């Protein structure tokens, strides 16, 4: 596909996109930066009304994908459509119907919370009579009622992030893109933010959220797309993916004196997947370890399987 200028062509359907089209559709999308291929044949379809977590380590291509969806980066190859609008040609029409939560905090610090929100009622063309209501709703969603007159520079990190999220919701978007919405926040503040995303789900919005926090993707997503080296390597509900690739439990063995290689080989000979972290061998689908094998293994540490086990099994890569 030849790179086009974003937002300059009229929409294919003057009625506002295809009403039965998926919220997001990416087919064979490629994005290169010089010799580096950031997104490499990405296929992804997101139906309406779900929260999809785009999970992958740093450098997997998540942020580049997000930028292509807002037409701030143009794909070298492939097709992208959002709510039935072709991207980048009809990006402006798509952006009128979606909200974008950026990775970078770009709130205006010298302004108040209310002023930051008001600015975006103008940019999203919220009708004058609905502006006050939109701001009140955003303050409620962000749990910032009573802080409308506070300067942004006086807010805590968590409050700022909540404000950044609801700023993208002033026009009640059908689709919300969140690029690493909780990156850099401490765990307590992150969990606090999850409430806002839960509330969005309650409203029926479609959410695409990129993250490299496993527990965040598991906790918030209806489905997870695992991304590595610029493409989606697997997709499904967190529970299904874990059951399919890692089973119910993982057993971790730490044999001494270089025994890890031998132990890993022994387990693999019995058809069970493993992953290595230093000298520790983690055996996935541990509930399937036969007694004949178990009797030859040392005493393990047992834990529940996680999406990270799935990801490492599928890609060989680990998270930071």
């Amino acid at each position, binding site marked *: 596909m030849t790179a086009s200028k974003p937002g*300059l062509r009229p929409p294919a359907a003057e009625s506002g996109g295809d009403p039965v089209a998926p919220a997001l559709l990416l087919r064979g999308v490629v994005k290169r930066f010089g010799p580096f291929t950031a997104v490499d044949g990405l296929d992804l379809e997101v139906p309406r009304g779900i929260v999809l977590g785009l999970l992958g380590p740093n450098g997997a291509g998540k942020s580049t994908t997000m930028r292509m969806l807002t*037409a*701030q*980066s143009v794909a070298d190859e492939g097709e992208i459509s959002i709510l039935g609008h072709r991207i980048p040609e009809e990006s402006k029409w798509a952006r009128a*119907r979606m909200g974008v939560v950026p990775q970078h905090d770009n709130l205006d610090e010298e*302004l108040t919370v209310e002023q930051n929100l008001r600015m975006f009622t103008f940019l999203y063309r919220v009708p004058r009579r609905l502006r006050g209501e939109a701001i009140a709703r955003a303050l409620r969603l962000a749990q910032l009622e009573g802080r409308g007159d506070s300067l942004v520079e006086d807010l805590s990190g968590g409050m700022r992030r909540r404000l950044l999220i609801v700023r993208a919701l002033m*026009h*009640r978007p059908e689709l919300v893109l969140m690029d690493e919405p909780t990156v850099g926040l401490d765990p307590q503040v992150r969990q606090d933010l999850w409430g806002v995303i839960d509330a969005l789900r309650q*409203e029926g919005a479609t959410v695409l959220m990129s993250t490299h926090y496993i527990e965040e993707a598991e906790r918030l997503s209806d489905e997870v797309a695992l991304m590595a080296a610029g493409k989606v390597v697997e997709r499904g509900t967190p529970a299904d993916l874990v059951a399919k690739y890692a089973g119910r439990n993982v057993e971790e063995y730490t044999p001494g004196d270089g025994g890890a290689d031998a132990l890993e080989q022994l387990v693999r000979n019995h058809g069970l997947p493993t992953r290595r972290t230093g000298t520790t061998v983690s055996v996935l689908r541990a509930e399937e370890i036969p007694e004949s094998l178990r009797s030859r293994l040392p005493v393990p540490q047992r834990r529940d399987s996680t999406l990270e086990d799935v990801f490492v099994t599928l890609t060989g890569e680990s998270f930071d």
Partner: protein
Amino acid sequence: MADLMNQNRRDARPAEHTRPGRFEPGAVLGVVAREWILYTQSWRSTTFAAVVEPTLYLLCFGFGMGALVGTLAGYSYIDFLGTGIVAVSVMFQSMMPAVINTFIKRRFLHTYEGILAAPVDVREVVTGEALWLALRSGVYGCVPLLVAIAFGLRPGPGALLVPFIAFLAGFAFALFGIWISAVISSVRSMDYVFSGLFTPLFLVAGTFFPVTELPSWVQLLASANPLYHAVELVRGAVFGGIGAGRVLAHVGVLLAFTALMWFLASHRMRRRVVS
């Protein structure tokens, strides 16, 4: 949180989506509205700079040089300088923030990432930013004229056109500044801009002395300087005695410069913010 969710369910209803057009005044006004809100927080310092700087120029040059020069090109020096400073003030009020603020917003504050995530395109951002600076220049550009009037300048009725001339020149210079901000790649490059571009522009424009006193090749360069045309328009409006043909020529040059800068600024800014 349960209360919040219940509240949200009560809130849930279809959004009122406004269908965007190809180039929308609404989007441009959104960008201008954003600047207006920011201005409400910073108007004191902005106004201070806009008033004090041209006043000092007028006081120092007007009385200092004026005592030595007497008359220049048929005007008293304070009249000559007072009208010239209007256009220079417009250039500084529009081009400087266009270069500096636009660069900072793009490179460090990620402001345009936020704006362009809304249904606003690069041309609308560029137009809105320039429009705001032009509006500001249209108002603040009159300050030196008022100061000069206080010091004895006697304007004709055409002086009422000065805000409009200041607006047009401010729009052109703001677009020029936005283009430069999208061309330069670091804060250090601004030294080249200020010393290598601003200074010659403002010295070779008929502000402090008539360009007719300069060598012919410099006069030729001056005729390509948009500030020279803004100075001539302001002076002509305030004192009259300028023919319709010359007015059209000066306005035509400023309009052509505006159109060229709008195209260049939009194109270059798109290359900066869209990868």
